[in-house]
């Protein structure tokens, strides 16, 4: 049978450098399909969907709330053409009831070990409207290796530079952070993948640069140490979310190829300043993630925070506006207080205010968000700062003997499209 797997596009935030990374969820899902399934994959962010392609069954995989409306449109079109459509993925779980209106079937939960049943039902014409495995998480050892062979690699390449590959070493999260739904989606228990399988999969990835997408690596010190120790011989270079603030862990992370980390910057304390410095001391870059619009932030607090960022030597900064995603405490609080005024999921892109902030108008928060980006990148653009980080990784790779020059055949292409050169007279 031919299964067409689709990842819907979403509108990118204006004014920011756009990079299309090869999506992780769909290829991890594809690994859970039985071997008799012939899968094709279309990432609509980098290529158009061929609605006429011969196929038997359609899967729509969605990660972001900003993908769901487009996902529904795609499903509506395929269903008009007589195809059956099943939805899955993180944002399917967060928006399941609405998604059911556009689906023949909705899959909730993790797909490992479940797809035989779904496909058998489909073959017998007994596809269920809902496959609900939210409360029955599979054995973590069943995960992967992801079907990265499904990527059209040239579409994830910018001027000859291959984008990082995404990878995950665990699921679940023991933290329950205010704006995050992961502990609901993946469970409140940290579930590391077996180390040997993790390393085996890492070894098969034909890319020296990775983004380890686990929500936080700082879940278990022993696990982090073991993981990093085993990663050292692979000589990969990688980006990740927070790493534990422990000299032993940071040292091993650096040896294992930590390139830069996303680190939340939530106040102007000496602790944050020192935290950034400690990463740098180990040669690990830092992209600060700054969430604006929390109830404990006044206008002055935000302005002070932006000034602080310029003082603490961050390599990059990413500003987002609080988005009250379903199944977060932020959503519960703002809902109870009647402060959510925009329910259009396309606007839940973390760059747009969809609720009434506590200490300022929605318009003022939007202005401060724009100002934050502008102020941080005033003296050195985002592209210039990214290039500096990129240069760091190139140097490390040259030292390791793993550096691969740019692909000259793709030097005039950016994510599959011709590069339009700006020529000034």
């Amino acid at each position, binding site marked *: 049978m031919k299964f067409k797997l689709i990842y819907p596009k979403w509108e990118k935030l204006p004014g920011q450098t756009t990079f299309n990374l090869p999506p992780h969820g769909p290829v991890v899902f594809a690994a859970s399909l039985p071997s008799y399934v012939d899968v094709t994959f279309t990432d609509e962010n980098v290529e158009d969907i061929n609605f006429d392609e011969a196929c038997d069954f359609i899967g729509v995989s969605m990660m972001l709330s900003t993908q769901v409306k487009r996902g529904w449109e795609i499903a509506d079109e395929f269903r008009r053409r007589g195809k059956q459509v099943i939805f899955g993925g993180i944002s399917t779980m967060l928006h399941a009831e609405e998604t059911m209106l556009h689906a023949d079937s909705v899959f909730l939960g993790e797909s490992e070990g479940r797809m035989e049943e779904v496909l058998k039902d489909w073959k017998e014409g007994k596809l269920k409207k809902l496959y609900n495995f*939210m*409360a029955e998480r599979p054995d973590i050892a069943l995960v992967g290796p992801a079907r990265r062979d499904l990527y059209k690699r040239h579409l994830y390449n910018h001027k000859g530079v291959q984008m990082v590959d995404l990878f995950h070493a665990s699921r679940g999260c023991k933290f329950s952070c205010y704006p995050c739904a992961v502990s609901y989606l993946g469970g*409140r228990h940290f579930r590391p993948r077996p180390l040997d399988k993790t390393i085996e999969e890492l070894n098969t990835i034909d890319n020296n640069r990775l983004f380890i997408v686990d929500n936080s690596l700082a879940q278990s010190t022993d696990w982090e140490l073991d993981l990093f120790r085993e990663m050292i011989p692979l000589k990969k270079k990688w980006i990740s979310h927070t790493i534990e603030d422990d000299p032993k862990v940071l040292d091993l992370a650096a040896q294992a190829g930590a390139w830069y980390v996303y680190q939340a910057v939530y106040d102007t304390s000496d602790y944050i300043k020192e935290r950034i410095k400690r990463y740098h001391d180990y040669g690990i870059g830092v992209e600060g993630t700054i969430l604006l619009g929390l109830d404990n932030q006044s206008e002055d607090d935000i302005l002070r925070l932006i000034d602080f960022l310029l003082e603490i030597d961050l390599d990059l900064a990413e500003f987002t506006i609080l988005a009250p995603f379903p199944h977060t*405490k932020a959503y*519960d609080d703002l809902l*109870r*207080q009647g402060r959510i005024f925009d329910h259009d999921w396309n606007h839940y892109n973390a760059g747009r205010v969809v609720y009434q902030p506590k200490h300022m108008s929605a318009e003022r928060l939007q202005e401060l968000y724009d100002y934050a980006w502008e102020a941080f990148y005033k003296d050195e653009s985002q592209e210039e700062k990214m290039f500096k980080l990129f240069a760091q990784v190139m140097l490390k790779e040259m030292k390791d003997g793993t550096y691969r020059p740019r692909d000259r055949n793709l030097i005039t292409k950016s994510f599959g499209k011709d590069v339009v050169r700006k020529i000034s007279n």
Partner: protein
Amino acid sequence: MKVSDKYYDEIFDFLDQWDMPSKCGLKIITKGNKKIIVVTELYQDNPGTSVTYNGASLAWQICRAKGIKPEDMIYIECNPDTNSKLSFYDEEFFEVSFEFQGDRLTNPTYKALTSDEIRNYFKVF
């Protein structure tokens, strides 16, 4: 973010809309012919959905389990104090009203309760 057991008399197990096993703190106080139901969010000790996200269904599940007529209940959601440095986890109480639709409750509306109102209700905390 351990929640003090002063907020509840028992842990109540409930299911979210997708049958996800979930837990909350529960205290029921009889006041005249009214039952004051206080559900407390347990944060890290709640494996499933929050008391708010699926509030109407939770209220219904409590009424059924405890034999309480919905029209006799005063329903209160509690965000307990967790001694967190973050103000989002300060203690808050909300009185929640529902509409009856056939055999279920719908459309929760919330009213934040002041400390005085809370004291009037319980004289407990």
